[in-house]
């Protein structure tokens, strides 16, 4: 496995975690407005690991019968962001965002569209906050709904290797009153990490001046 440690300094990793924290907090606000209940968030976990390890981390969590809203992003940095939750919670999420007054058959019919829209709002809110704080534009793809096992969602693309270093982060969310829970996960590849290092340096300098 390649050594991930020298890619980002301790302060750059700290800055990245803080950026993600700000992004996900804004996303939680958007979700809170949609479901009308408090959204609980965990502290983000961020790691520089190989692609294979990232998939292993996902497999160690709840692994089967999952739904994911997937969006790719590109610009100075590129990667993939996903909102992932158990399939059994998917209809409950749709019910929560549609106001809970629709009959079951309408909810089932709306599921795909409602999931895509909900994921789009949450992931965009998170990524747009990060992009704004880094003063860069990110172009987001249209949301895509995936179903299956978590390892499949981040399966290696063509040309990528199992030992490629990626930035992997995830954060748990829950709407306690509605029994909805899931997590947001993000993967970024190595060329993006090099660009990210530079952007983080600029962000740190804007925030605190030149660090000692």
């Amino acid at each position, binding site marked *: 496995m390649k050594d991930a440690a020298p890619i980002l300094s301790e302060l750059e990793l700290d*800055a990245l975690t803080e950026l993600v*924290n700000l992004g996900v*907090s804004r996303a939680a606000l958007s979700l809170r407005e949609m479901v009308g209940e408090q959204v609980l968030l965990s502290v983000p976990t961020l790691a520089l690991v190989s692609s294979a390890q990232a998939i292993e981390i996902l497999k160690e969590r709840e692994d089967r019968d999952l739904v994911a809203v997937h969006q790719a992003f590109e610009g100075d940095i590129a990667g993939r962001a996903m909102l992932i939750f158990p399939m059994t919670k998917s209809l409950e999420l749709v019910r929560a965002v549609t106001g809970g007054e629709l009959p079951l058959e309408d909810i089932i019919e709306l599921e795909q569209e409602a999931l895509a829209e909900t994921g789009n709002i949450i992931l965009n809110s998170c990524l747009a906050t990060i992009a704004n704080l880094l003063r860069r534009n990110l172009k987001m793809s249209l949301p895509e709904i995936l179903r299956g096992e978590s390892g499949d969602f981040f399966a290696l693309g063509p040309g990528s290797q199992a030992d490629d270093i990626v930035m992997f982060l995830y954060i748990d969310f829950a709407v306690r009153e509605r029994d909805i829970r899931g997590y947001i996960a993000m993967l970024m590849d190595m060329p993006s990490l090099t660009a990210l290092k530079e952007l983080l340096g600029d962000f740190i300098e804007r925030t605190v001046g030149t660090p000692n």
Partner: protein
Amino acid sequence: MSCTVLIVDDSKLARMSVAKSLRSLHPDWTHLEAANADDALAQVRKHKVDLALLDFNMPGRDGLTLAAELKAIDPSLPLAVVSANHQEEIIRKAQEIGAVFLAKPLTEKVLAEYLSGAASRRNAAAKE
């Protein structure tokens, strides 16, 4: 009056950012830093703290839990809970504890306004 401000945040960058604003706004004030709730309690027991700024989302106990613990030690200690997560439940809980809620990223203007009011309240409490 010179004040001692406790900055509690698991992010070193966030602590550095607040410390930089503090130095610019009140060069004669001192500040202490803590990366989690336990460190914060240790600082309060060891030093005289006049104001505290607490991050909400931290590993271990969050900023609201810490705020309640600090109020139990020193009921007149002015506290601010700082977060980008300004859901109304969190703002309400902060208010119930007796803390002010400030949105993150914290601007120097917002911090200046909070510090001015909090320092006055601290002074008034000290005179009682």
